[in-house]
């Protein structure tokens, strides 16, 4: 190899090295091929459920938690699912999960998952229709009646039911600010609700919803039905 060619080859190799070195490797990887459902929480921990079935009926259900590095942290048998049809994860955050166990009657289980599974409470889908959850609890919403209700971690109702103008919405998991607020809109009307020991209506105004800065709880309700008026709110 000529000296100049060698120099080019070395430079090309160095550039390739720099390009590869700049790439961020994954913190961890998990293969969920043998699992029926999974949910990543905000810390990148994963809850996965593995159901063994015989003739369409669960004979064993296992809940496995992986950390963000893909390391298995716990594995526990969920005995309540035996004899049922399916287990799905509605929510998972920092060891707390809402599972929907389908059978003759579909039942939500609020569970603490780890090396053992602690059932904190249950409720049927007739009483609770999961929409989202956050640190204040679980928000249920029924489309037919437009009724929303907060439930605590035991899945016991907290506060009184509220009639919404439409389903709870938000950019992540149908809610705002990690499940502590939500908005709903219908027919040029906007409501913003606070989820805290019950559901508290904090904003009701005419217009359409615009999120400005979720971290700072800033939104705008824009009413362009006659003039184009923008009303700025800090929801709290």
């Amino acid at each position, binding site marked *: 190899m000529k000296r100049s060619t060698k120099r080019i080859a070395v430079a090309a190799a160095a550039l390739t090295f720099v390009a590869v070195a700049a790439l*961020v490797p*994954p913190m961890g990887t998990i293969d*969920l091929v043998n699992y029926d459902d999974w949910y990543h929480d905000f810390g990148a921990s*994963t809850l996965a459920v593995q159901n063994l079935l015989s003739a369409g009926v669960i004979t064993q259900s296992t809940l496995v938690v992986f950390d963000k590095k893909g390391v298995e942290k716990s594995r526990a048998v969920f005995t309540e699912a035996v004899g049922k049809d399916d287990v799905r994860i509605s929510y998972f955050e920092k060891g707390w999960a809402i599972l929907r166990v389908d059978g003759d009657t579909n039942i939500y289980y609020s569970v603490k998952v780890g090396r053992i599974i602690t059932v904190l409470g249950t409720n049927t889908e007739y009483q609770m229709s999961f929409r989202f959850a956050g640190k204040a609890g679980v928000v249920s919403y029924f489309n037919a009646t437009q009724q929303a209700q907060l439930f605590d971690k035991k899945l016991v109702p907290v506060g009184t039911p509220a009639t919404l103008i439409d389903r709870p919405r938000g950019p992540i998991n149908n809610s705002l600010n990690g499940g502590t607020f939500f908005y709903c809109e219908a027919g040029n009307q906007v409501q913003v609700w606070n989820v805290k020991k019950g559901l508290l209506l*904090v904003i009701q*105004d005419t217009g359409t919803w*615009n999120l400005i800065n979720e971290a700072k709880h800033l939104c705008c309700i824009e009413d362009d039905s006659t*003039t*184009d008026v923008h009303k700025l709110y800090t929801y709290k």
Partner: protein
Amino acid sequence: MNAHSRNRLFATTAVALCAVAAYALLEPSGQVDVTGSIDYRHDTLGNILALSIGKSAAKAPPIKLKMAYYDKKGVKIGEPSLGGLKTVTNASIAYFEKSWAILLVQDADTTLYYSVKVGSSASILGTAATNDFLFCFAGKNGAVSCSMASNGTWLAQVYDKTLARVGATRLVLTNPAPLNAGTYFYCAHNNQVQIWRVKKGLDQAVNANGQFVAINEPKKLCCVQDGTTHAFYLYK
């Protein structure tokens, strides 16, 4: 208690309850009527920039671009005008944050991007033609232009606030989707994901097979899901 006193008690209680309900509702921190504007934009602090086109009363009127800048309380901070822009036929706001805006302004002959410092007054920081710069998004490290070349490849380039090029043009998978207020972006195409860092140019942080799944944007956590394999990334 006779019927009259009972009715009066009910009425007083109802009025009191209404007062409580009304008191609980938040009032807007401010409102702005942008009727007649050709475009407007809220920044993440709730400030509003609105554009309108006005004609002077002269016989052959120059068509001027008017700007109005309001704070989140709806107070007008200024109505700055840009010197030299006198025959505007159309204009829109590509970006607005704090005191920096990128406007796309069309006159009889040309269409140009203007990078503008706005407040009680305005000054032009730089301009770029649409055949050189195609706004995709902007953030504190500059504006990112993205365009598809004739051979179908996608090219991205960072520009500073004067709309001068920063760093090299990079080949990216597809049109970028901004992350973390424009300091990163991802592209996803044909089961491949790229994450790029916007900082004095474009640096590729992640390149992986799969689909992009957002986990926690403030903490720069994401998952790239390739079939049943989930790879967790902390992009930085």
